[in-house]
């Protein structure tokens, strides 16, 4: 979701809607949510696929369709501006397009909105300007003698007045000292050069970093030159189309620019020359009504499909058995027949699609043996007087012993590893509960992560761990209930003193037993080492046990 802020009064007036609830309802049907943000402003959440709705022009177009006021594809007249844009060799950001929008009437509010529109496109389709960057300039401030804009790499010594500054700076200084320079400079640098939009010798902008002060927009701006540059042909072109069509919805007149030298493919081979924006060459999707009907689950014919799409401002024509859908320039999110199905569903209204009755299969699906064992273990553990815990799987590596999964980009030292045992979770909880009524008897059942031979090299293994903390505790105190739990599950465990200190990681070796069933070690029981008690900040003795449920299940299955 992308959030935009618009002035309530001007939006409502623009949309011809007078009730907030009605606005809210239409926006809901268009994947959006609106709430009042105070001071007469609205906070509107737009879904990331509907970039055309990041501007009130696009919202108007969509709402018009749903209300049935204006339906069908929006068409926008274009004229030829006689401006040229020449694309140079910019390997790091090879694609650039431009257009001119005339007849704008800006006020403080719409100027603010235009800048918001630009910024929201930067963060979405622009991938924080990495993929696409936009520059919007006051056309009257560009030297119109030559009527030619160039896009090319320039050396870092070149100078201009960056937007918001009052003195000339070198590009190098901009990159090193200005906030935008530091944030975006690295996206553009190539061989000690940086791409620039130029008019003659004047730098209009250095995308994706910053525009020039020279072409700053004001409320007196009537015509703008928009440059869109970036690393993806499609994304750059889609952005240009969205900006121009949305501004056309608020009265702008689109004027095309002759763009020369567009690299069609990457690596650059062919160069093409064309007028942009170009809405004549629309992508078409053939839709089969029968498929649409089956996908949605209702009767639909070619004609009704065309009508529903018209409400979504998508042009389509019925060609007998099929429908030919023309993707409007402002709807690059429509990629396949399935996207068309969604638009038709939205036009119908999801609320009208919910069936009265669904034939849900009833009857319980069977539990896996591992799940049955887990349930039994939990039930028996509670019966044995242990309080159940449910804690985090992520923990601090300082509480883990042996090998474990380490997180490469942790947010804090407290959670920088994945547990390989539940014992540390219990110990951490005990450490925080030393003033409660004793004894404290705890257990937790859950997954630990251990190396294994799966495709990722790690597996979730279900474990169950127990702990008792009291003024005085002993091995037998925990051994007894654990033994009973195992016994009623149907195994008769043996206990063997651990020979290897790597098995008794938290516990005193001479007071730790492996729980053996048919010579398979399924877990351990032991009294905590004094050093470990100290490490966890425990001032009461603790006895712990842990059982590998997978191994337990294995011995249970042998029977």
């Amino acid at each position: 979701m992308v959030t935009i802020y618009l002035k309530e009064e001007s939006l409502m007036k623009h949309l011809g809607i007078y009730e907030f609830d009605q606005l809210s309802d239409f926006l809901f049907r268009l994947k959006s949510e609106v709430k009042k943000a105070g001071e007469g402003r609205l906070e509107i959440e737009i879904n990331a696929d509907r970039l055309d709705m990041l501007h009130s022009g696009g919202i108007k177009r969509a709402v018009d369709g749903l209300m049935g006021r204006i339906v069908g594809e929006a068409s926008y007249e274009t004229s030829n501006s006689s401006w040229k844009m020449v694309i140079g060799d910019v390997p790091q950001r090879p694609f650039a397009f431009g257009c001119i929008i005339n007849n704008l009437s800006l006020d403080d509010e719409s100027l603010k909105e235009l800048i918001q529109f630009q910024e929201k496109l930067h963060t979405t389709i622009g991938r924080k300007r990495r993929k696409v960057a936009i520059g919007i300039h006051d056309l009257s401030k560009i030297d119109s003698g030559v009527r030619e804009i160039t896009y090319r790499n320039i050396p870092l010594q070149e100078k201009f007045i960056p937007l918001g500054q009052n003195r000339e700076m070198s590009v190098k200084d901009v990159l090193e000292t200005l906030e935008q320079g530091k944030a975006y400079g690295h996206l553009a640098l190539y061989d000690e050069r940086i791409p620039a939009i130029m008019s003659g010798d004047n730098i209009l902008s250095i995308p994706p970093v910053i525009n020039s002060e020279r072409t700053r927009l004001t409320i007196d701006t009537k015509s703008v030159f928009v440059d869109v540059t970036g690393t993806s042909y499609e994304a750059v072109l889609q952005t240009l189309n969205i900006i121009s069509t949305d501004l056309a919805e608020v009265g702008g007149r689109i004027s095309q620019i002759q763009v020369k030298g567009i690299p069609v493919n990457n690596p650059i081979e062919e160069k093409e020359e064309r007028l942009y924006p170009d809405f004549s060459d629309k992508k078409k999707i053939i839709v089969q009504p029968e498929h649409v009907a089956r996908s949605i689950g209702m009767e639909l014919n070619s004609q009704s499909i065309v009508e529903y799409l018209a409400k979504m401002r998508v042009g389509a024509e019925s060609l007998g058995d099929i429908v030919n859908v023309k993707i409007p320039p402002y709807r690059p999110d429509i990629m396949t027949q399935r996207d068309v199905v969604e638009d038709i569903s939205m036009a119908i209204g999801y609320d009208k699609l919910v069936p009265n009755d669904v034939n849900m299969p009833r009857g319980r699906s069977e539990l896996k043996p591992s799940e049955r064992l887990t349930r039994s273990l939990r039930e028996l553990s509670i019966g044995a007087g242990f309080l159940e815990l449910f804690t985090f799987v992520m923990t601090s590596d300082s509480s883990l012993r042996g090998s474990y999964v380490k997180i490469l980009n942790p947010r804090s030292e407290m959670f920088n590893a994945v547990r390989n045992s539940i014992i540390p979770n219990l110990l951490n909880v005990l450490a925080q509960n030393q003033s409660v009524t004793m004894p404290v008897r705890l257990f937790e059942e859950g997954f630990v992560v251990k190396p294994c031979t799966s495709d990722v090299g790690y597996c979730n293994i279900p474990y169950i761990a127990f702990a008792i903390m009291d003024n005085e505790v002993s091995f037998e105190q925990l051994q007894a209930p654990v033994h009973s739990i195992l016994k009623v599950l149907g195994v008769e465990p043996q206990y063997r003193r651990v020979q290897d200190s790597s098995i008794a990681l938290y516990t005193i070796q001479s007071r730790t037993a492996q729980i053996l069933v048919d010579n398979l070690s399924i877990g351990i029981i032991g009294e905590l080492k004094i050093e470990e008690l100290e490490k966890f900040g425990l001032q009461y003795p603790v006895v712990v046990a842990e059982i590998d449920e997978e191994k337990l299940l294995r011995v249970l299955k042998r029977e």
Partner: protein
Amino acid sequence: MLSDSEIRVLTILREKGNTLHLNEISSISGIPLEGLQSISELLNSKGLVRVEEVTEELVSLTEEGNKRLVEGLPEVRLIGLGEIDIKRAKELMGQDFEIGLSWAKRNGWVSISNSKLIPNVDPESANNYPLSKALKKVAEGGRPDEDSLKILVSRGLIRRDRRKMRTLTITKSGMEALREVEGKKIVGNLTHDLLVNRGKDNIILREKNVETFPPTFPIARRHYFRQFLEDLKDILRSLGFTEITSGYVEMEFYNFDMLFQAQDHPAREIHDSFSIEGEGKLPDPEIVAGVRDVHERFWKYRWDDRIAKRLMLRSQTTASTARALSQRPPSGSRFFTLGRVFRPDDLDATHLLEFNQLDGLIVDDLFNFRMLLGTLREIFSSIGIKDVKFKPAYFPFTEPSVEIYGFMEGLGWVEMAGAGMLREEVTGPAGVNSPAGAWGMGIDRMAMSRFGIKDIRELYSNKVEFLRWLKQQR
């Protein structure tokens, strides 16, 4: 049932005379007077004793009386001096001489001749002097004859006090009650030994104070949130879904690529998931080729299998759905998965680094979007959310997509789940040709509102007392 002390009081009454003063009972039994007051009231209310208030005169020695008791009365001391010069006697007795002489004269014990006192009686006869005896008797707690008493009171040696006293008299039913407990053992608690070796007829269980609070008993119980998750699983099973699981450590391939999430998608940025060292093994080349193809064709970039192999902690349980899909489930499959997912965040009252998600998948030749909406409504209804509304939405891997809003008391409409029909760009590479619907929801917030919890960390609480005493959901 009689208490120990009640039995003791009744026994004393029976043995020491049927009526006794409370202070007498107190000195015999050792029970303090205050305790006896309440016992006597209890016995009275049971009709086992009769309580009477009597006003009684008590006599006791004054300070001077005590002195005389030790020294002897002046008249006795006087005749003890034998024949003596008056002047000499005055020297010996001081002020007491006059008193002694006056009373000795009145008793006819002495005569005076030539400034000498001459005893008329043997000093031994003073041993039977009634006033001396009376003084002694009072000192011992007794009451002397009225004549002596009057004289001693007038001499300021004895004080008369009147006070109210309570007497207890054992009644007939008191006698019977006592007989019933006679010869029996009074015990605090039954024991095996008593039941088996001493004969249960010889036991009387002491009365117990059952109105005080007990010591704290730490209860063992299920974890409320864990159980909530188990219950949810059961609901899904009852709707015909089978549980599937996969590991916390996941390959980006299943977490993102198979779900048609472009490799430069903002949700794939490094700060949005936890990275793990190492790389995984991609599944069979056909699926990988299919995934590569749809990414490159629709998202227009060069798909990198090295990115797909990177390891991470899964950020959505939809990764399990992707894995299930890669196994080419047949038409009619209904799966769910519920488990932990991990996303970098700052831990606070509303954010966790790990939480629980529930994902579902239906693969069926006859499935469609309307059925998905109907199924979702059924699922929400089964978990107690009867009012739902559906909002068009966007997810990279579904189309049409929908967000489900549920109405929750006190909260209004709350976004609860996302769902949609899986794109052909997702099912296609997996080799699944049937329509498939999928949905996913976060569980934690729903549980918070169900349990009325304001701090999300309490779902994974470390606080033992909180878990012990949390109100049980009924």
